């Protein structure tokens, strides 16, 4: 696979890992946060922790849009689809997320018309093909995904497709990073920046992290060599006493972002004054709602949303794990009441949530002496 295989080349990976070992001061303990759930997933999938020196710790940040969605919002979305005339559509990621009455898949087993879509445009297509039904699209995601929802809504309006609406749960990344840095129990040295969000917002929005917080940040791609190179970049900055924004993912991320995408978002969305993030609490100006000019395509304005707040069980320590204060295995429920099969908290539901990733890929690995390490 072009633009994928090259960045998984074992020889170059070994070289880059060697460079990391050369750069990392053995007397220091480094704490780097990778913000994006996709990075969490990649790190576990490629076993990158195995080739990093022990004094480099990767902390998983809150960039998992499924994980930070409060259970009440899932209940709301499912409530909207109770009417048999409604087709509930969502990405596969949402299907096993539990609401208080069960997940979308469980609702499907009980007779609700629930369908997985790969793209919001597929949901709109369903609306075109089923004029006597209403298609509701449960939208999730950060700024990577929001433009696609925006464009879909623009098309729905232009084409006059009225049996379609979006239940909007898009959130924005910068307020989440701010919340992490504002947290008193946080100690971070640098950031591995979210590469795909940056294809939309560019690299400028991270400048305050370098200027005001004095932390290096490298906006990183998702292949092993991307992540390792990003680590090389922040290590070099730290060694030189620098703190700046670097673009590791140059082949894909434009420094200024994607103007067309940002324009589409601006036309369709506006910021909510505040939004509840599971595990982080209420954060102002951190989520998108659909503008009044598109009210007809906004599920929340078109239908009655119950809007019930569901608080998490006190024992679930999702918040601390989300903030990187606790490791998944340190949560009292991990592996016992909370597993990917029966998740108590959302970090266990999404495969990119830190707890699920750790559970699925890592926690049963004892020190495997039989693996041969690169020299």
């Amino acid at each position, binding site marked *: 696979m072009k633009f994928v295989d090259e960045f998984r080349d074992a020889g170059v990976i070994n070289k880059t890992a060697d460079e990391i070992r050369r750069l990392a001061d053995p007397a220091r303990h480094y704490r780097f946060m990778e913000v994006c759930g996709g990075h969490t997933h990649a790190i576990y999938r490629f076993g990158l922790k195995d080739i990093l020196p022990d004094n480099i710790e990767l902390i998983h940040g809150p960039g*998992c849009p499924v994980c930070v969605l409060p259970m009440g919002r899932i209940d709301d979305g499912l409530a909207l689809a109770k009417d048999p005339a409604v087709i509930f559509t969502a990405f*596969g990621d949402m299907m*096993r997320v539990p609401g208080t009455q069960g997940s979308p898949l469980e609702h499907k087993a009980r007779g609700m018309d629930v369908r997985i879509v790969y793209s919001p445009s597929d949901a709109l297509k369903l609306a075109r093909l089923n004029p006597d039904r209403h298609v509701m699209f449960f939208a999730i995601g950060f700024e990577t995904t929001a433009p696609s929802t925006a464009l879909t809504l623009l098309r729905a309006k232009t084409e006059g497709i009225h049996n379609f609406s979006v239940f909007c749960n898009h959130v924005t990344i910068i307020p989440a990073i701010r919340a992490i840095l504002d947290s008193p129990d946080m100690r971070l040295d640098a950031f591995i920046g979210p590469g795909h969000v940056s294809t939309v917002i560019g690299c400028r929005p991270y400048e305050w992290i370098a200027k005001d917080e004095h932390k290096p940040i490298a906006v990183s791609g998702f292949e092993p060599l991307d992540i390792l190179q990003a680590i090389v970049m922040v290590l070099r900055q730290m060694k030189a006493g620098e703190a700046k924004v670097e673009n590791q993912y140059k082949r894909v991320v434009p420094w200024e972002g994607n103007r067309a995408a940002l324009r589409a978002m601006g036309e369709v969305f506006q910021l909510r004054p505040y939004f509840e993030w599971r595990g982080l609490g209420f954060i102002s100006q951190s989520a998108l709602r659909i503008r009044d000019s598109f009210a007809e395509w906004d599920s929340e304005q078109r239908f009655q949303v119950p809007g019930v707040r569901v608080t998490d069980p006190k024992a679930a320590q999702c918040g601390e794990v989300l903030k990187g204060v606790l490791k998944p295995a340190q949560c009292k429920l991990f592996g016992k009441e909370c597993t990917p099969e029966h998740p108590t908290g959302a970090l266990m539901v999404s*495969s990119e949530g830190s707890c699920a990733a750790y559970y699925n890929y*890592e926690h049963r690995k004892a020190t495997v002496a039989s693996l041969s390490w690169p020299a």
Partner: protein
Amino acid sequence: MAHGAGGKASRRLVEGLFAPLLFGTNSEPLTDAARVAVNGAQVAITTDSFVVNPLTFPGGSIGELAVNGTINDLAVSGARPEAIVVTFVLEAGLSTTVLEAEVRAMGEAARRAGVRVAGGDTKVVEHGKADRMYVTTTGLGTPLHGVSIDPHSVQLGDKVLLSGPIGDHGITILLARGDLDLEADLRSDTRSVFPLVEAMLQVAAPGIRWMRDPTRGGVATSLNELARDCGRAVHLKEDELPVRDAVRGACELLGLDPLHIANEGQFLSVVSPDYADVALNALHQTPGGEEACMIGEIHEEPAAAVLVTTLYGGSRIVDMLVGDPLPRIC
């Protein structure tokens, strides 16, 4: 609903409910086919149900899946498939053309495999009570001499062999459903693996410890079952796993792992090191076995788990599937 996908939920249903209540056992490892003594002779017997949407897809249809699936269960249990019986549960309103096509497909698959269809039954249920057609097949076979399939016989250092590329069937079905709007030149790999199994057993029987056909839940589920049953670790080499380009592309696009995707024409075997090369060679020499390969080894740790390792020293645990493999965008 998750119970039919193979993997943890199915396993719990079978082990927790069926085994103690019906089979009279809940402590012995479950196998692909059971041995029954009939008039002093040992007979292998197995049964399977087939529910698939759509009924026909590139490379086959439910009829062939049913026949090959049962033949393969017998084959990997170390038995020669002899005969099958078939039952159909049909939804009222199902077109006779469709039904006839499936019956023909089954007959053809059975003929190709040299297996007799000895009988069958049909029931018609109300419209809406069956998803067009459900098929159940029960197969009988003759246990082959000198073959002993037992996960407890698996030793450290044993090799894991795989008959060919993984993920073809599951991805073909996913694409054939049409919801994801993806197109690829892929076909289901449904076929009888008995000729390959037989060829391998002919030269390597004393070294064969265990075999399984990785259907629902994929290679990951079958190897996790083995790891659990023998208490050891299965180490797989990521770079050795045979995956066709289109399967890889679909999996990357949808965020799926080929190790979790169903196969209908492949089998796994664990072979002692002294027989591994000769077993692999036998597969290579048999039509259909050209892409067979060695994908891993049995180790001590991590106990009862499957570990995938990469050339650069990274590793990850691969667990059994929990429910269906779902596409993701995150």
